[in-house]
């Protein structure tokens, strides 16, 4: 079914292909936020900044159906890489090809508007993710069932608890039948029952042959769910391979930091 609907991916065999991608950020120490500052800076003639590469000449190929784990320390470039793949950032150089429909679970409920009801937000969020009104209307009922927040669905979401918020957002993002799912450390919210529900859903996706990119700091989750793990450090891939091995390398890397005293 997956292959049938995406004949192009057969020829171009990767679901996600990242080629020599660099994302350079300019950190301006005193950014001219207003024209007054711009003018004063004009007199000073210099704007102080430094540049750094959050992702540095990185290439990565993810075949369809693979569950890829991304690990690395804070600031190693995991989230930036996911945002580039999701199309939020346009990379400074390099190219990204994504075959199929992509659902980013980067920050859940980013498009939610707190004055609108859950039901209204389902539609708006779906449209923001690039689905049509009709597609969303067909799925609304299933989304509501999965989110399982009862009558709150017709209340403005500013009255939601953060758990309910997450439930609804996860339901919207995954009920839309994406080919590629991007998950960035979002599963730490919600109660245990809901977390389990989310992992069940991820397993369903996995069995359906969907591609999943997964960032987590919980090594147990990584080993349990991933086929392959990539470890990032300073914006580059340093280790790439079997989940068990890569997570061990990562744990060893962190150990000296955790136990500096001999």
């Amino acid at each position, binding site marked *: 079914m997956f292959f049938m609907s995406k004949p192009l991916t057969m020829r171009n065999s990767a679901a996600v292909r990242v080629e020599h991608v660099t994302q350079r950020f300019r950190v301006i120490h005193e950014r001219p936020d*207003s024209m007054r500052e711009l003018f004063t800076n004009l007199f000073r003639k210099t704007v102080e900044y430094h540049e750094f590469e959050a992702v540095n000449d990185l290439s990565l190929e993810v075949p369809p159906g693979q569950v890829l784990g991304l690990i690395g320390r804070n600031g190693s470039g995991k989230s930036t890489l996911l945002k580039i793949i999701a199309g939020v950032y346009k990379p400074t150089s390099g190219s990204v090809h994504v075959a199929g429909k992509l659902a980013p679970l980067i920050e859940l409920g980013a498009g939610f508007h707190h004055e*609108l009801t859950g039901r*209204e937000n389902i*539609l708006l969020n779906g449209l923001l993710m690039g689905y049509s009104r009709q597609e969303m209307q067909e799925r609304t009922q299933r989304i509501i069932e999965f989110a399982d927040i009862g009558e709150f669905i017709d209340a403005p979401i500013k009255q939601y608890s953060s758990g309910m918020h997450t439930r609804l957002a996860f339901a919207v993002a995954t009920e839309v039948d994406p080919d590629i799912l991007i998950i960035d450390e979002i599963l730490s919210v919600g109660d245990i029952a809901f977390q389990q529900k989310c992992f069940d859903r991820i397993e369903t996706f996995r069995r359906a042959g969907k591609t999943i990119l997964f960032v987590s700091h919980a090594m147990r989750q990584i080993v349990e769910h991933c086929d392959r793990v990539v470890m990032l450090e300073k914006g580059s891939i340093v280790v790439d391979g079997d989940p068990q091995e890569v997570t061990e390398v990562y744990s060893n890397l962190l150990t000296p930091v955790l136990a500096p005293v001999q």
Partner: protein
Amino acid sequence: MIELVQSIYRYRELIWALAAKELKVRYKRSVLGFLWALLNPALMMVVLTVVFSTILRFPIHHYAIFLLSVLLPWTFFSQSLSYAVESIVSNGDLIKKVSVPKLVFPVAAVVSNVVNLLLSLIPLAVLVVLMRHPFHWTWLYLPVPIVALVIFTLGVSLWFAAANVYYRDIAHIIQILLSAWFYFTPIIYALDFIPANLRWLFKLNPIIYVINGFRLSVYYGMLPRWSSIVASFICALTALLIGFWFFRKHQDDFVFYV
């Protein structure tokens, strides 16, 4: 330009949903709800009519209609611009997290105000009847200046929305700019009031041609000259070209500045 039309068409559902959200949020939690979209201009008209027919008496017959015929389109223009200028920045959180065409935000801001403009024509028509002002057939011509005005507004909005990402001062400047622009446009007065030797200066004002179309058709029951219609569309399309070009050039960078 074709690209602009294509992407507006492609994202029409999203644009419409955002515009509807804008309207819904604006009128939510008010008892009369959406009725305010009608009541607001109606009440404003009552005030203006009372003021100009009793206190300030201008030597213009049915001054309230004379004024409102162009004040309503002007209000559309200035409201759209005020909304659109902040539209990218206020959706910054979203832009930083979801890959979404940036264009939809200023366009939705303008669209939501188009709804208000069209609704405000209803109380205007009522007023025309109540004041026994002739109800001219030239009302049928109104879609033409409305289209030109929307195009013009969209262009200006795109430019300012993009510029405001880099310099937040734009949002403040625009209010002053709008009020200056208001007084230098023949809205509360007619172009005839301006000394003949200065009139050329007013004709440089790009919004004057489209505004003129509204007043002629609603108040005077006349159609504008061809040259004036063409001028209004030239101004509108130029504004759209510049605005869209500028917006497109910078849209991939917005995410780093919002």
